[in-house]
């Protein structure tokens, strides 16, 4: 007789799994960051690679979905962070800073993106070398299509080069991301304008065309005096500065508008040693510019006058005189922002050397062939980016009012998937089987490797996480150079995270809905029924013995385990 009441032999024959009425399942769900990323980045996966100090692996994961981590890590408005579940706990993860860290690490190693498929013979023409066009070119080139990009300017990059000042996006960052795309075999023909140098009919030997010419025409104010000398378009000014052309401005500059272009203009003007005052007709709350941009502008000495609407621009003693009306906020309008209402008899004047109008851009449509439909300021496309003409696709700012770099990148990727499906004779809807969460972003990695990244579209809510496993930790951001240093020139304002800080920040990530091998389930399982295996999921449940108690599901800090009723 043994000392205690213990079975003499192995009890493995007793398959206690037969008692189970519910089964835990390892199942990656969609984290809110990925669901919110217009470019469709697999954020949690690249952060996991950072956590494991596999920075190259992180680079590879980002590059599966986007050719522009260096750009996005710097200029994206990071909607991923606004949706980050950590924001409900302390502060969101600095995802943009991590993306930037990974990008800079990869380029530091001179990494080049690899091709995926070979010997696709079709030729594709892409009109416009902005983020949408280059993203489309990148993904098609990875699939080994013969891609030529036509760009009317002497440089590739579109709005990334023309519209974004180098203190936010240094040119070498842009250049290395563009050269990674070119290295895949993409041909870029600069100085070729559609409608002038070539027509769509000239591209007949291309089996598909992607039009991504952007929105470059200044919308203007529609007020008297705006066409006179001394009144410039914000985008034109930025183009001149960014193309290093000579710009002569007086000392006092008024910038009209509240968007990112207005901020970019004002901050650029400050860097040229001038005084900049922004006039905006609503309040700070309604400003469409990113918060960080506004903050940095204010730090640098930009003055913002809110609730001011210019009525006309006149002339006085060699200065431009802007007559304005004060506004107050009324009810919300269709954009969800409070509508500005003029206060009668509140007129006043501002005298400046130059007036710069930055109130938004419109698309140029004169070159577009018949058969393409335009409505409400954009070119209409189907959901997949295809147009009324077979083989012609369009995307980017041209086809959407959500005009951000990330949206453009996502739109170019979607077109690349649609063009691939088109060439391969697939149902155009097939690409929408790869929505991230409920969409609208798509994963091209899913499209190409459907078995390797299986994700439940359910977007993980904060309430589904187990906060017992997390402690408050301060968000780590990029450091910035001093204001004094900033306004001296166009040096980049913020710096890339150091390795240590990046590791710390990545360590804050909840890994919502995604197993990161924390082993909590393994430790808690009372039946030792968590198996560690090679494969799609690093952990599996041993259903021979799992009694379905659900402790793993309850304890999992990140909602990566689902509990489902057993089928009878």
């Amino acid at each position: 007789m043994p000392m205690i009441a213990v079975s003499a032999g192995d009890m493995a024959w007793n398959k206690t799994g037969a008692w189970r009425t519910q089964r835990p399942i390892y199942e990656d769900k969609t984290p809110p960051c990925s669901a919110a990323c217009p470019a469709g980045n697999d954020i949690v996966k690249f952060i996991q690679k950072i956590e494991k100090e596999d920075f190259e692996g992180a680079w590879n994961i980002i590059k599966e979905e986007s050719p522009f981590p260096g750009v996005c890590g710097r200029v994206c408005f990071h909607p991923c962070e606004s949706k980050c579940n950590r924001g409900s706990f302390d502060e969101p993860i600095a995802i943009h800073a991590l993306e930037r860290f990974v990008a800079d690490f990869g380029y530091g190693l001179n990494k080049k993106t690899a091709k995926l498929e070979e010997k696709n013979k079709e030729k594709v023409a892409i009109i416009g070398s902005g983020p949408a066009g280059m993203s489309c070119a990148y993904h098609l080139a990875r699939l080994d299509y013969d891609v030529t990009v036509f760009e009317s300017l002497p440089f590739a990059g579109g709005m990334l080069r023309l519209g974004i000042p180098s203190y936010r996006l240094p040119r070498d960052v842009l250049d290395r991301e563009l050269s990674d795309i070119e290295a895949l075999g993409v041909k870029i023909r600069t100085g070729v304008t559609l409608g002038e140098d070539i027509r769509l009919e000239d591209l007949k030997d291309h089996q598909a065309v992607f039009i991504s010419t952007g929105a470059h025409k200044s919308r203007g104010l529609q007020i008297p005096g705006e066409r006179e000398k001394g009144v410039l378009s914000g985008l034109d000014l930025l183009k001149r500065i960014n193309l290093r052309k000579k710009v002569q401005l007086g000392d006092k500059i008024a910038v009209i508008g509240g968007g990112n272009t207005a901020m970019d203009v004002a901050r650029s003007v400050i860097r040229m040693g001038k005084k900049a005052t922004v006039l905006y007709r609503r309040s700070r709350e309604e400003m469409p510019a990113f918060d960080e941009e506004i903050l940095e502008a204010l730090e640098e000495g930009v003055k913002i006058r809110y609730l001011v609407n210019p009525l006309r621009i006149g002339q006085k003693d060699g200065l431009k005189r802007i007559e304005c009306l004060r506004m107050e906020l009324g009810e919300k309008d269709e954009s969800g922002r409070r509508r500005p209402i003029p206060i009668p008899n509140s007129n006043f004047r501002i005298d400046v050397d130059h007036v710069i109008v930055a109130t938004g851009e419109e698309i140029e449509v004169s070159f577009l062939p018949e058969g393409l439909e335009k409505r409400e300021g954009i070119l209409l496309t189907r959901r997949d980016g295809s147009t009324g003409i077979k083989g012609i696709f369009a995307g980017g700012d041209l086809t959407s009012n959500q005009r951000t770099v990330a949206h453009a990148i996502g739109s170019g990727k979607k077109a690349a998937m649609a063009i691939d499906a088109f060439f391969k004779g697939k149902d155009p809807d097939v690409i929408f089987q790869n929505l991230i969460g409920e969409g609208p972003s798509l994963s091209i990695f899913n499209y190409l490797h459907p078995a390797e990244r299986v994700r439940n579209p359910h977007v993980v809510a904060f309430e589904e996480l187990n906060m017992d496993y997390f402690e408050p930790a301060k968000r780590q951001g990029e450091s910035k150079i001093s204001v004094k240093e900033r306004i001296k020139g166009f040096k980049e304002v913020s710096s890339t995270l150091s390795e240590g800080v990046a590791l710390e920040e990545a360590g804050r990530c909840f890994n919502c809905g995604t197993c990161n091998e924390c082993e909590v389930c393994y430790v808690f399982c009372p039946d030792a029924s968590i198996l560690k295996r090679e494969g799609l999921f690093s952990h599996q449940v041993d259903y021979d013995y799992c009694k379905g108690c659900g402790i793993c599901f309850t304890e999992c800090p990140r909602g990566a385990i689902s509990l489902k009723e057993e089928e009878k």
Partner: protein
Amino acid sequence: MPQRSDLSQRGGEMKRVITGNQAVAYGVILSRVDVVSAYPITPQTTIVEELSELIASGRLKTKFLKVESEHSAMAALIGASTGGVRCFTATSSHGLAYMHEMLHWASGARLPIVMVNVNRAIGPPWNIWSDQSDSVSQRDTGWIQLYCENNQEVLDTIIQAYLIAETVKLPVMVVLDAFVLSHTAEPVEVPSIEEVDAFLPPFCADYAIDTQEPRAYSVITTPDYFMEFRYKIQKAMEEVPEVAKKVDDEFKARFGRGYGSIERYGKDEAEVLLMTSGTVTSTSRIVIKKLMEKGLSVAGVKMKRFRPFPSDEIYEVIQGAKKIAVIDRNLSAGVGGIFSQELRASLYLREQRPPVFGFVSGLGGRDITPELIEEAIQYTIENDRPKDEIVWLGLKR
């Protein structure tokens, strides 16, 4: 608090002025405990505080399991100990009572867990001071119980307790008085970790859990076999006197300090013996010395081990005594002090059966002063047998 590496001083012990609770923590660190699980209760709290802080700071590589109750603390250790690692917990009073069910489980499963109980009264009325009612209430749970007199003995007993527990496969409760020891600092020799390592080998479980070869533990056992498992526990208890003696002798050889299960002091061939446990013994030593100088025929008996009850060891040291006075700092209402009751029972079948005077005193932490102890001895000298089953000492009537 130091960590293990701080306690590495080859070639000598050093004295530190530490409280009883700190002495417990030192003992735990030196015994290379793998898992600690505990729930705070006055006056035990600072033991767990010391250990958990060391563990949280990463300086002590021991796993601390946070739990929501004493019942869970013991349950967690039952799991860990079954897994084959050395375990520790500490509690007091209501916390110990709350563990009751799991105490039976630990001994029934033959797990060599060591626990410290800081003696404290059980309410109501609410009371946090020294009283043995909590530990004596658990006398039937199959745990070995060792009572300590001073902080040095506390530290030494923890280390000894692991060796005893792991030899006979039974859990050990090390008991010390609330505040009088737990919160009072005394100079204590702290042995070096190397010396303790040489004394206490790593724990090796007989039936450690192996996930590759899973077994069923503590399975339902029919009347055909249940009694035999209980018999084995009794047999293990019967091994304790010899094992404890060997452990204590070995300890004394290495560290120069030994305690025995029973210690007799004072006059040889004395007529009246005074039996005490815990810190009352320290006070009694002074009283006995004083009365001997006055020419009285008195001696003291310190009872360190209460379970298994040291019947033979006691019988050996009481030879020739005419009367025995026992001071109990506990009360089993309806009977009297537990130590005196058990002593009477153990003498019943013996040839020599001196009358046992059962004094109850110091409940709820009231001081058992030298005057009270002297009063007990005088009462014993003056009376042939006790007038009552319980003689109340220092009671306000």
